Each structure stands twice: as C-alpha cells, then as structure tokens.
C-alpha cells in the first residue's frame, strides 16, 4: 500500500467527501486563497498580468454571500434533496433574523410621560436581551427549526405545486406578523438592531487585533462566515451521503416505493423541513448582523425567489452548488455594475432614470434570463457545468 498513495482500501474512505489527494489538495488551495483574500492579500490569477484582491465592498459582499450560502444549503435540503418545493424560505430566514435580534440585540427604550402621574417613565419600544452569539445564533436556528416542525405536516398531504403555494402563504403570514409585532421587529421603515455578533466578549463587528493581526470589522465577519460555512457545509454534505440523505432522495424520487422500503415518509419530510429551517434561521440571524439592522419588509416573496434562484443556478441537490449559486446571486448586482464599465456594455446606464436600461433593470433582466437559461440548458446549474468541465479535463486529450 505504500506504493499506492490514495488507494481506497476500506468502505469508510470509499464514502469520503474528498476521495482523492488531488481533490484534497485543490480544496486546500481554495481555502488558503480565500483566507489570503480575507486577510487583504492579493492572489495572482495570471502571474504578473491579472491580480485579484478583495476591496472593502467585495469583502462585504463575500461575507454576505457566505451567510446566504448557509441559507441556500438549507433550501437545497428541503427542495433539492427531499423534493419538497418550498417558497417559504424567506419566512424562516425572517424568524431566524428576528429571533437573533431579540435574543442578541439591544433593547430600545424611551422616556415617556405617564398621563396619570405626570412622571417620566421608561417604556420599552423594542425588546432585546443582548445575549452572547453562542446563545442567540443557536436560538435563531432552533426557533426557525421549530417553525419548520410546525409547517412540515403541510407536506404530508400536499406536494409539488400545491405545497409551493401553501408555503408561499407562509411568507405573507410572516410579513404580516413581522410588520405588526413592533415590540420585536421595530415596525415597518424603522426596523431594529440585529443580534450583536459578540462571542464571549469578542466582537466580530468591531475592528481589532486577532493573534497580532489587525482585522477590520468586515474581515472578522468574513472569517466568521467562512468558519460557519465550512462547518455547516460539511454537516449538510455528511447528511446527504448518509442514511438520511438517501431516504430524502428516495422520498423525492418515488415516495410510494420508498415507503415500501421501510422509509417513513412523514418522518423524513419532517427532518427535511426542520434541518432546512435550522440552516435558514442561522443564515437569517447572521445576514442581518452584517448590516446591523433588520427590517420587517425584507422577508418578502422576492427573497424566497432569490434563494430558489440560488439553488437552481448553483445546482439542485448539491452542497457545492448551493454555495456557487449563493455567491453568484449575491455578487450579481456587483457584476452588472462591473460590466457596465466596459464599452460593449455601454447600453447599461448607471443613472437611475436615463439611458437604455439602468443597473437595477439590467440586474433583473439577468436574474430572470439566467434562471430560464439554466433551467433549459443546464438543469444541474453551475455544478453541472463544473462536472462537465472536470470530466473533459480528466480525459484530455482523449474524448472519453
């Protein structure tokens, strides 16, 4: 065995996430590159010609993309792996965001005059317990998971388009509740402070030194996102290649046969919703910690559609696809802005009113167009393209 590096000799290593040393090597390279970029370093894409580094705004979008990836992985668990189409992902993101803000955010109080006594009294406008990240982040996930548990029975009786419609109802219910529950959400147009990303007193949202390296606020959040994405991504991947993942795929592909194989349908649909909502809750809590504020109207149908787009464009029922899709959709506005700078895209105007199409319009056109294109041309999304490219180079220079 000494002469055969990477030889698969037992079933454990045969089922590994990275099966070969080559895969392990390139994953490490990617990881190192991301860390270097996060630290403000420069990666030479083509040495001497094209360099790449993350400017402040790109770093912020990258951080958002990593948290969005966690949410997209969540949606992919319920919709991609288990085949239960859910348009209600924005609802679970919202539950996570507001639970995080309630448990980990600051309280807002105001002095008001008590009309009976004429005295000034302290009145709480928005509640907040200001607890640590280690408490509010799991709480955000768990409360969302509990909501998932409550919603899951819908999927026992409905499927496909009908389930999509019912979960769509959740978004509107959620929007209403978020709008009216002002003591938790702050109300429309005002919103409230999000959960404070402070882990045992270590503030991710304030610049400071870590192991002798000075990190800006965005850099700290970037690494928080990277760490959580790796942990939750591997957990999702582990689940996908386990008994649970196989059962979910069986429920998706042929539910009646699955039941006759001894797979309890209701139980696995429930697991899918609970795990998916947990991921959504964690993602929701963190996404808004980047900005620092949560606003009730953020959790609308468009947000759900955006997550559906992420998994469609990235790759249905894949973890890496969810991440690619989330990055692409999050970076889309920035990509459009960048494209507008080239002369051949001169028709994209950066003024909000003038020109042929402006940035926001172009972004929407691309968003819709890409979904249509991917559904027709490459249903497996970026993941499918990646697999094709990989297989081509595996066999190169031969055709098979």
């Amino acid at each position: 065995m000494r002469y055969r590096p990477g030889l698969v000799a037992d079933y454990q290593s045969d089922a590994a996430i990275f099966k070969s040393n080559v895969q392990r090597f390139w994953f490490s390279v990617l990881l190192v590159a991301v860390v270097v970029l996060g630290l403000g370093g420069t990666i030479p894409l083509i040495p001497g010609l094209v360099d790449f580094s993350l400017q402040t705004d790109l770093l912020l979008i990258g951080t958002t993309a990593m948290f969005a990836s966690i949410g997209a992985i969540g949606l992919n668990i319920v919709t991609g792996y288990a085949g239960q189409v859910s348009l209600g992902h924005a609802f679970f993101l919202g539950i996570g965001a507001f639970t995080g803000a309630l448990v980990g955010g600051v309280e807002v109080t105001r002095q008001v005059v008590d009309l009976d006594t004429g005295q000034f009294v302290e009145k709480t406008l928005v509640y907040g317990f200001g607890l640590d990240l280690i408490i509010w982040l799991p709480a955000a996930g768990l409360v969302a998971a509990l909501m998932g548990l409550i919603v899951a029975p819908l999927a026992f009786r409905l499927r496909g388009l009908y389930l999509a419609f019912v979960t769509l109802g959740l978004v509107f219910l959620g929007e209403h509740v978020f709008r009216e529950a002002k003591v938790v959400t702050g109300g429309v147009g005002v919103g409230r402070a999000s959960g404070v990303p402070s882990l045992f007193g270590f503030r991710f949202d304030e610049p400071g030194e870590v192991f002798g390296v000075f990190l800006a606020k965005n850099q700290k959040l970037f690494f928080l996102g990277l760490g959580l994405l790796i942990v939750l991504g591997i957990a999702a991947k582990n689940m996908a290649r386990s008994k649970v993942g196989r059962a979910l795929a069986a429920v998706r592909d042929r539910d009646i046969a699955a039941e006759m194989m001894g797979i309890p349908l209701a139980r696995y649909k429930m697991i899918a919703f609970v795990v998916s909502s947990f991921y959504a809750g964690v993602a929701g809590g963190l996404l808004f910690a980047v900005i620092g504020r949560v606003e009730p109207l953020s959790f609308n149908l468009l947000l759900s559609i955006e997550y559906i787009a992420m998994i469609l464009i990235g790759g249905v029922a894949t973890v890496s696809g969810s991440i690619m899709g989330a990055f692409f959709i999050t970076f889309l506005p920035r990509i459009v802005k960048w494209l507008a700078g080239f002369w051949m895209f001169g028709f994209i105007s950066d003024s909000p009113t003038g020109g042929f199409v402006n940035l926001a319009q172009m972004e929407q056109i691309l968003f819709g167009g890409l979904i249509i294109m991917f559904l027709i041309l490459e249903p497996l999304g970026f993941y499918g393209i990646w697999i094709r490219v990989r297989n081509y180079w595996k066999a190169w220079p031969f055709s098979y």
Partner: protein
Amino acid sequence: MRARMLNEFLPPGDRDGPAILEFDEVHLSFAGIKAIDGVSFSVKAGELFAIIGPNGAGKTSIFNCISGAYHPEAGSIEFEGQTLLGLKPNKIADLGVARTFQNIELFPQLTVLDNLMLGRHQHIRYGTPAAMLRIGKASREEARNREIVEGIIEFLDIAQFRRSFVAMLPYGIQKRIELGRALAMEPTLLLLDEPTAGMNLEETEDMARFITDIRRELKIGIILVDHDMRLVMDLADRVLVIDFGKSITIGVPEEVQRNPDVIRAYLGQEHAIADQGDDQ
C-alpha cells in the same frame, strides 16, 4: 476468491414449516369493480408460492394489499401472527416483507450502491445528528451495512455497475438490482412481481438461478407472480391461479396444469381441447 453464499451475510432463516402469511377471504374493489373477490391462501416459510392468472386478474392487487398500498374491505392478512391490515407500508417493511415491482421502481437518480443501501435503511441505526457529524457510530454502521450490500452485489454479479446511475442501466440489470434491494432488506417474506417480465431467454434463466439460489440459501417465503409458465411450473412448490379476482385453484404445479378451469381461463374454451391434445 471463493464465491460466497448469500447466507454468509444475510441470516439464513431456517423457519421451515409453519405458515408465515395467512391471506384469508380478502375482498377489494375499485368503484364497484371487484379486484380481489374472496381469495385465500397461506405461504409457509421456505416455500416458493406462485400466483398466476391472466392480465388484470388481481395478482398485483394481492401484492399491494400485503405491502399496505391498498386497503381491503373485508378479510384478514396476517404475517407471522400479526395482522397487516391498517399498518403503514413502512411498518410492514419493518416486519420483514420486501417486494419488487412489475414496473421497476428503483430510484433512478441514485447509484446502484445507494439503491441497495436504501434497502438496508431499517437496519442502519443512527439518527440525523449522528449523520451530520459522521463520527464513530454513523461511520461504522455505514461500513457494516456496506459490507452486506457488497455481498449482495457479489451474489447478483453486478459489481461493474456499482457506481452507475440506475437510469442508465439496461432493463434486465435494473430488474436484478431491484431484487438486490429487496434482499438487502433481509426479508422473511419476499414478493416478486413479474421478475422476468420483458426479459430474453438468457436473462430469464439468470433470474431463475438467482431465485433458486435465494431459496436454497435463505429459506425465506417467496411469493412469485409471473407470466412465464415454464418458469413458474419449474420453480414453484404450490401455485394459486386467479381470474377476475377469484381463486380458481391452488395446488402443486402438475395438478394445476391439468385443471380444465385453468386451461379455460388461460386459453379460452375452444383452445382447451386442442391444448389437451398436444399434451398427450
């Protein structure tokens, strides 16, 4: 390497003798059409029991009643002393009833390996949190069950297709994988719904050999539904003939073959005489 016996990785199940399935006076109808009209039979452990009948006679309906997809209006179905009526299909599977389907019901987007591992579902013991961590128990359980699945792969001679996606494989191989998935469930009663339908002679012979081997090595009860008369008469211990949901006769193959009602049901009245002439 020595070819291994099936019972080296699956429990041999030497419960020869007592009836494991009692199918008693079952009635099932769809919108007034009687699909099963008072059929009764019992299957003993280690027995190969065949059900034959023309198309639409109700053979698959009997299977669907046993595996819990249909709910009979009257009658009783007992498996090892426990009633199957009102149980969910997954509970019935947990009790030890496995089946294959007339129209292949494999999971097309999964690999052969994953399909067979799905058969092991009820025997793999760990929960979702363990699955996400995949340390210790989850990892060991996966490996242990993979070993059993590998034994079935070896038995069915499908090692080369291990990593192929089921949708890309030829029909005959898919039928074989479905048999493997049912075996992976370690059943006490195996329901085979037309395992040789649409197969050529060679594939049919392979399948017949697999069924014979399963019988010899596992001694589980098997109910076989098939249209290939030669196969059924060669393999079966007893044969039940049904037509329009009604039981025509039960008996050993030689008896059944000579039964005039059976010949009439199969070939029609006028052919019956000519066919009998051929036999002599």
